[in-house]
């Protein structure tokens, strides 16, 4: 279905941002849990893992930011307008773009919230 856009939106582009969020979440918690296991020394510091989480967060935010800007840009350029109620391929495309924008915004904030503990905790407690 060529509609004259750069990207053809589909369910995969829609879930890209939440997927980045999910992977980021998994790696953040998994890595620190791995570092602290079996948690015999609860005052052990987690400096390295905090840096890792920080780097990961920057990458994740960049990825989500890209998704956000792309979807928003295409939506705007093609005159997207809510509500997307019409029964056509064109409106379906706009609808997906708009949903992608919303999900990317949500994921962006979620990634920050996920990473915040690592910004504030210094050890395995």
């Amino acid at each position, binding site marked *: 279905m060529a509609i004259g856009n750069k990207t053809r939106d589909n369910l995969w582009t829609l879930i890209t941002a939440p997927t980045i969020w999910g992977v980021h979440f998994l790696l953040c918690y998994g890595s620190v849990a791995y570092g602290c296991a*079996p*948690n*015999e*020394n*609860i*005052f052990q510091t987690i400096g390295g893992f905090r840096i890792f989480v920080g780097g990961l967060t920057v990458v994740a935010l960049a990825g989500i930011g890209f998704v956000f800007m792309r979807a928003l840009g295409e939506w705007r350029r093609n005159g997207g307008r809510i509500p997307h109620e019409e029964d056509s391929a064109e409106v379906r495309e706009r609808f997906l773009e708009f949903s992608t924008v919303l999900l990317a*915004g949500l994921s962006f*904030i979620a990634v*920050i*919230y996920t990473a*915040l*503990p690592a910004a*504030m*905790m*210094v*050890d395995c*407690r």
Partner: protein
Amino acid sequence: MLAGAVVIWVAVIGLSVFATKIRPGAYGEKAGLRLIVWGGCVFPVVVLTALLVWGLQMMPVLRAEANGPTIAVSAERFWWRVAYDVDGEPGVAKSLPEGGVPSANEIWLPAGLRSEFLIGSPDVIHSLWIPSIAGKMDAIPGRVNRLVVEPTKPGVYNGVCAEFCGDAHAQMALRVVVVSPEEYEAYVARQSQPASVGADDEGFRRFTENGCDACHTVRGTAATGKVGPDLTHLASRRTIAAGTLPMSPENLATFVGFTHRVKPGVQMPSYGMLSEDEIAAIAGWLETLK
């Protein structure tokens, strides 16, 4: 906390009054959109971020090292096994440390010190909750959880099991007695003493004859059972059977004679078949275990 709740309450009630009484009727699309963006996105994100940061920076302080005693608390269906001054192990252990001064169903704490609970369970998941002193901490079989508490005000507090664990879950409470550090030391020293029981004591004889000693320990005697609570200083507690009845000779007799009517589901048989005199003799003797 209360202030926050009041603010939220006033805001919610105020909004509902506004929307139903002061300005009923529909809003334009622009206004609705603005409400969603500011009220539904920006506002919660800002508030939640502030609360999250605030909560997170409080966490390490809450879990700082203890400078008071280490107390092992084993949550068992449906009572609390307590041991004072155990050797605390750092980090996560699979089972509670052995030893310490045994007690049950009542925990004394020194005011002004950070005491550390090591919390475990041999059967199912329970949760130790002393609302005035600390948040809940689960007691999980095969794992020891740590909870550091710092009571500041002497007094008697109530605690409960906060995780459904079976029939008598609702009757699995405990008293927490906060006293000065000196009184705490004296209390633990008293609890560490054996009971003084004459071998020819009528009540004690009935106690062993009926097999109570298979499950209960009375230190200083041949009773060394480990299934139920240590009874060495039973009468020094404020309650019977984990907060179920106030401590008194009559209530002791009631509990022994009608165990399952008082507290259904406990792992102690009812001794209703004993004669009233016999139960009274046992209860009278239990009452001397100060």
